[in-house]
């Protein structure tokens, strides 16, 4: 029996809300599974669809994009652009044979460390249930 599957999840966190929530989770000594590799952008609106595709292509089993709540964006409405893009990217993933559930979008404010912890455990469980992505990609190649 090999080691149990631990999904690799790339997380894009906006500088103002979600990155600060991650800091708060840390200073509050909350516990969550170590599956998330965080990449900081100033706004979730900076997350280019190609970043998501490249993450999946390079070994990610899941991608979490997280930013300020709608209406609270530091850049007024960057997250609205994110919302539109993620909706589109999900449909493209489906067309590529990648389960759209592997891509998750969450609004996590700077004070919502607990929300992140909840999302983190949910998402790890969900991706574990889906299984690793790379064998699928190789089979499709």
């Amino acid at each position, binding site marked *: 029996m090999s080691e149990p599957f631990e999904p*690799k999840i*790339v997380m894009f966190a906006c500088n103002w809300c979600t990155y600060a929530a*991650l800091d708060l*989770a840390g200073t509050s000594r909350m516990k969550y599974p170590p599956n998330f590799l965080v*990449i900081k952008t100033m706004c979730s609106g*900076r997350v280019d669809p190609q970043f998501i595709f490249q993450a999946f292509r*390079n070994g990610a089993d899941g991608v979490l994009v997280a930013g300020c709540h709608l209406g609270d964006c530091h850049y007024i409405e960057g997250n609205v652009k994110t919302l539109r893009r993620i909706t589109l990217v999900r449909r493209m993933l489906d067309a590529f044979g990648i389960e759209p559930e592997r891509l998750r979008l969450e609004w996590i404010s700077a004070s919502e460390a607990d929300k992140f912890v909840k999302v983190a455990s949910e998402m790890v469980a969900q991706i574990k249930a889906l299984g690793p992505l790379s064998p699928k990609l190789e089979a499709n190649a």
Partner: protein
Amino acid sequence: MSEEPKVGVFVCHCGMNIAGTINVKEVVEYARTLPHVVDANEYVFMCSAPGQDLIKDEVKNLGINRVVVAACSPAMHEPTFRAAMADAGLNRYLLEMVNIREQSAWVHSHEKRRATEKTKDLLRMAVAKAVLLEPLEELRIGMQPASLVVGGGVAGLRASLDLAQRGFKVHLVEKLPTTGGRAVGLGTMARSEMSGSELLRPILDQVESHTNIVTYLNSELVNLDGSVGYFKAKVVTYPRFVNAKCTLCEECVRVCPVEVANEYDYGLSKRKAIYLPFKDARPRIMAIDPHSCTMCGECVKVCEPGAIDLAEESRENELVVGGVILASGFEPYEPPFGDFGFGYSEKIVTLFQLERLLDANGPTKGQLVVSGTVPKNIAFIMCVGSLGTTENAHQYCSRTCCASSLKNMIRIRALYPDATIYAIYKDIRTYGRHDETLYEQATEQRVKFINFENTPNVNAGANGITVHVRDATLQASLAIPVDLVVLAVGMSPSSTLRSLRSVVKVGCSPEGFLREAHPKLRPVEAPADGIFFAGSVSGPKNVIESSMAGSATAAKASALFAKGEFHVEPITAQVTEELCSGCAVCIAMCPYGAIARKSVGDKKRAEVDRALCKACGACVAACPSGAMQQAGFKDTQLLAQIVAISERRNVR
């Protein structure tokens, strides 16, 4: 950047905060195996002076030109390490931090093995990005220590005067022929015997006489270019047709054949096409309203001082300012024809019209005379146009109408002790420090309060006016015959806001008021630097709050001007012209209006005003050709970080 990247890695123990969970030695050894890493170090507190010296020494001795610090959150010590690098002569933006304390050690202390593995992953990703970092320079913008103020109401006047008194030049632009705004139309002020125009007289005089303030009446801001520190404003001044020789003899008014509704009295009186807007209007000269004037020339014939010139033309003023204060105010909510009987009878008036009736200088000289008689039974209907009471009503509370209505009920009671006054309300919100006493006073003075369950109905017929209301307390339907209905209307966003917004690129809230940078912490600032909101442009405010907002914007603008220079973080968007097709997708993405299209030869290219860019990167993500890039967050840099999530480079 042509020089070979040489990365120095510095891993912090943070005492036992990091080292207690993560095997730092293993991480350091791993770092040494990564491409372009020249050396890796560990230290108990990297932020301490000896820790910073480690970085400086390696810059000097090993010639490292990229720094990766694995420690706490960048929110904590990024400035510390940047300063250390600058000290050693290295550009401060060649730093990448790995947040291994908050994102690994503290949150994964229950899984130490995996925490160390995750730390190695994060470090590998950071090194991959760091290799591609480029030196950046802060943008420094010179500051024109002058301000444009749009709107000459309480907020704009207060802002102008505060700035002028601090020694800064102010260009005050008012679209009407006189300053004073809405407040001069208030007949009486609460807890005072003064009218609005009496209250404002001192500030109107001070603004008029201050040498640092240039007032542009009958004027409009038609174009605004540039950004914080150096805005170029185009202000058009429309002709007044009357100059300073006017002595206010009123001969012209006598002969003018044109009569129109007087907007200062909200249509309750008539005025001529040549007129003094109101008794205390500044400046003390007549004005001609070009919309109603027929240019018959009768006034010119009788004007002894020769103050009238009907050939006067519009003037354009080019102004250069460092900051812009928007204070263009609100408009009273006007009920649609028929709502609450509005428009059916002269005896159904708005709160703003009532203010005029109770003004000693108003159309009835302060007497409550409507259709020739003094009303005996008066009903105030509150929340007209607010709190969703009707289909067209705003969802928000306008805040001022409760206190204002109560003040007027008390005033009417003082003038007419025998009158019966009904306050038909949904909620009474007298939130100001002194305002609850108005409510108490009104109850003591026998105002009959009726809490309505459903929006009341007003019937205006040949037999007079009846208000039908379901009383929530009595649980009874009442029909109240009255001879005056006062509709306590709230505030609507000014109808001129749309055109102002197209000139000054600022956003609005769903209610239509201007949207602040932050509703709680930065309530008088626009998201774009150098633009400020004073008064009710950003939501309903009373005179006190408008004064405060005016002073606040002046303080904000002064802080900007006093610095003499504005610094912009260099992580802004930039265009590679050769790659840009001029498609303009980026322009629609930018909430700050920082991107424009310029002509390069016969082609169009996007151009970023770096002073306006706030570095969100939305345009970069939208650019189809990769021409738009964000410094410090370039596609190549972030993609390198993404590709490095696995050691196994799964690139086919």
